[in-house]
């Protein structure tokens, strides 16, 4: 027993002496070893103290890693424990992301080449409580994370979490095979959402499959294939379905400049998902991105197909855009600049084109389901300002907006909207917009110095009133409230003042093109004199042109009924007319006289 105690004391003394001696020369050895690593990895490594623990554990305290050309530390750790040279635990690790990103951009390729020369050994790395500062060390709130990584033979596993407001747990398992890697499973989940992917990376081919549950969306049947070629990276296919609707993406980008790329995206909705409320059928999008000294810009086009015309009354829309720039201000705010955006669509079979230039859109999305968009754009030599609030928490999306047009040139507008053909002047308007299953657009409009020539309405009015001059109205000031609800359109407080006449009234068209309208118009003496009836009225009623002519319109838009309403002018005219003369006038005005139309006589025939 005494010998045993003696032997134990001698061993303890030897361990103590060995540890003491080890600690003395370890500092020097560790420094030179760190220098070698630093030289190879283009970094500067410094540490406070080094401790040796028998038999194979070394502890580094207050470790700092700087980029060789860096100004501040890109990585800090209060304690790095290395056991048996292959079991590393990094305590209180902090990463300066901008510095690390810069370092990897500069030296990534060299480090990768150096890492490949290291001896293949089993290794385990544990970072139990890491912090990553996205905008620089000690600036803002860090993203916390945990890494538990191990490489055993060729089997690789990693798990941990990533906590950036939302905490994600991750797991990764796979096998290194030759120069490739088989991913058995990559799982990300945070309680509400989860993602499972598997696939492989061999030579220059990357394949992956999987599925994602994201909030209320099911993204299934993911199937992707990426090919890394000599000069570019080609996404040969990426197919998946979102709640049963098929999405396909193809594209390529340059290896020299990852932001120089082309992509084609298609979105096909299943027939059973398409209805009057959700009429969208297909979206095709082509994007070309280019990175220039002025920044990243996109150009391309988008096609939207709808099965039902719905409130917007179009089945197809094509949008071309040029020089689209995206400026990410922060996590919740981005700006879009578009040099030119042209939309082509048809309503009632008539093609329309809307051209917006120098469009600036600011998009806020602090709430994941609510977006606020501020718009400003040149439009037909005038300007458009608008604000849109988008709620995407449920389908159909809720859209609310406010905006105004200023000084739109009707000449330019008339090139694209046949309804405004041969209308001239400057149009201004402000409006409120509300869209869910239906559209509701309300507002005011004003037109100064308007000039209307040969519109369908004018031709009809000139014919019915027998006033040929009405086919050209100049120097007109027009103002009105307007309201569009679904397919119904309403103009209220409509006022039109010209040199030859003043008009006020309202004009409503319902969803079936049925008109309800009432108006009061006062003609100049010259204009009233053009009409044979007007001349008669002037002859019958002294100063007839000073009295308003009240009328009403109703019926189908394209075959409107006309009525001269009871008014002082009409009363005065009737005082001077025999009733048979009234009937003659009425019959002349009526294109289809049908009084007392009867079937054959009763004696021989019915009636």
């Amino acid at each position: 027993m005494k010998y045993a105690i003696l032997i134990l004391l001698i061993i303890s003394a030897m361990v103590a002496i060995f540890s003491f001696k080890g600690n003395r020369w370890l500092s020097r050895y560790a420094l030179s070893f760190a220098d070698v690593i630093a030289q190879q990895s283009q970094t500067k490594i410094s540490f406070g103290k080094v401790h040796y623990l028998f038999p194979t554990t070394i502890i580094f305290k207050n470790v700092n890693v700087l980029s060789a050309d860096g100004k501040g530390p890109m990585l800090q750790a209060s304690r790095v424990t290395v056991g048996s040279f292959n079991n590393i635990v990094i305590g209180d690790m902090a990463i300066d992301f901008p510095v690390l990103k810069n370092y990897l951009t500069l030296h990534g390729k060299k480090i990768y080449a150096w890492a490949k020369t290291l001896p293949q050994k089993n290794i385990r790395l544990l970072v139990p409580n890491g912090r990553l500062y996205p905008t620089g060390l000690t600036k803002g709130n860090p993203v916390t994370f945990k890494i538990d990584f191990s490489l055993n033979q060729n089997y690789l596993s990693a798990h941990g979490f990533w906590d950036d407001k939302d905490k994600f747990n991750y797991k990764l398992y796979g096998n290194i095979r030759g120069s490739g890697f088989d991913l058995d499973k990559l799982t990300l989940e945070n309680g509400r959402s989860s993602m499972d992917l598997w696939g492989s990376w061999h030579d220059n081919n990357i394949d992956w499959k999987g599925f994602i549950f994201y909030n209320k969306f099911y993204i299934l049947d993911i199937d992707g294939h990426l090919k890394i070629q000599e000069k570019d990276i080609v996404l040969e296919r990426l197919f998946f379905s979102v709640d049963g609707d098929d999405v396909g993406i193809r594209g390529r980008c340059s290896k020299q400049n990852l932001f120089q790329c082309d992509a084609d995206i298609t979105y096909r909705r299943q027939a059973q998902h398409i209805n009057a409320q959700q009429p969208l059928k297909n979206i095709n999008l082509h994007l070309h991105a280019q990175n220039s000294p002025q920044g990243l810009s996109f150009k391309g086009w988008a096609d939207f197909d709808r099965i039902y015309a719905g409130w917007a009354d179009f089945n197809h829309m094509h949008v071309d855009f040029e020089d689209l720039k995206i400026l990410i201000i922060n996590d919740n705010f981005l700006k879009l600049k578009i040099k030119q955006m042209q939309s082509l669509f048809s309503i009632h079979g008539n093609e329309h084109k809307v051209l917006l230039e120098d469009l600036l859109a600011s998009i806020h999305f602090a709430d994941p389901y609510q977006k606020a968009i501020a718009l400003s754009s040149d439009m037909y030599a005038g300007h458009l300002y608008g604000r849109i609030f988008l709620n995407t928490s449920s389908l159909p999306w809720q859209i609310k907006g406010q905006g105004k047009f200023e000084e739109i040139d009707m000449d330019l507008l008339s090139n694209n909207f046949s309804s405004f053909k041969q209308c001239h002047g400057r149009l201004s308007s402000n409006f409120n917009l509300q869209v869910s299953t239906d559209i509701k657009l309300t507002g005011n409009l004003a037109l100064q110095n308007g000039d209307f020539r040969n519109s369908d309405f004018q031709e009809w009015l000139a014919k019915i009133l027998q006033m040929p001059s009405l086919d050209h109205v100049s120097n007109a000031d027009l103002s009105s409230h307007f309201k569009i609800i679904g397919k119904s359109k309403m103009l209220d407080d409509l006022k039109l003042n010209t040199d030859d006449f003043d008009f006020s009234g309202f004009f409503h068209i319902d969803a079936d093109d049925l008109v309800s309208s009432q108006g009061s118009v006062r003609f100049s003496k010259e204009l009233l004199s053009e009409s044979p009836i007007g001349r008669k009225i002037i002859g019958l009623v002294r100063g007839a042109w000073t009295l308003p002519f009240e009328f009403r319109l109703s019926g189908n838009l394209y075959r409107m009924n006309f009525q001269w309403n009871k008014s002082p002018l009409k009363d005065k005219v009737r005082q001077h007319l025999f009733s048979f003369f009234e009937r003659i006038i009425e019959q002349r005005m009526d294109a289809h006289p049908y009084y007392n139309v009867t079937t054959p006589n009763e004696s021989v025939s019915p009636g």
Partner: protein
Amino acid sequence: MKWYVIILLLSLQGCFWATCVKASEADLEWKEAIGLAKQGENDFAFMDFLTILDDCPNSRYCLAAEFAQGEYYFLQNNLPMASDAFKSFYAKYPRHEEALIALAYLFQIAKIQKSPNDMKEYRNKAASFRQLTFIFNDKKIFKFLSGFQRKHKLVYYINKIELYVNGKLFTEIPF
């Protein structure tokens, strides 16, 4: 040559004779039909109206006889058959005022059957049936005595159509 002329004249006379015979047959059928309708023998009157349509398809009574079919089914409360008959009548005589009466019947049938889509369709057709101008009068009137001897009066206003049958408001189509 003269023989040819004589033969041709005789042939033409034969054609006229045949038409006259048909015309008088239609007159007789019509007289009988409306006589039966006056006595309340609607079923027999209906048979006579059908006979006019079958035997004298070009007769001037065809319009009224065809309208009478829809009217008969309506009076029998056979609304689907009445609807079919009035639709066929409207398609055949779209420019006649009687077609608007048929539309009024179709509108009323749709109203009874509580079919708002059909009501809307017939309302829209009625609204665009004719373009009217009211200068001194605020209404226009069309009268029609049907095969079943019911007095129809169609009153057009700027924004509605009213149909009176035997002096009572039958239906109103506002637009």
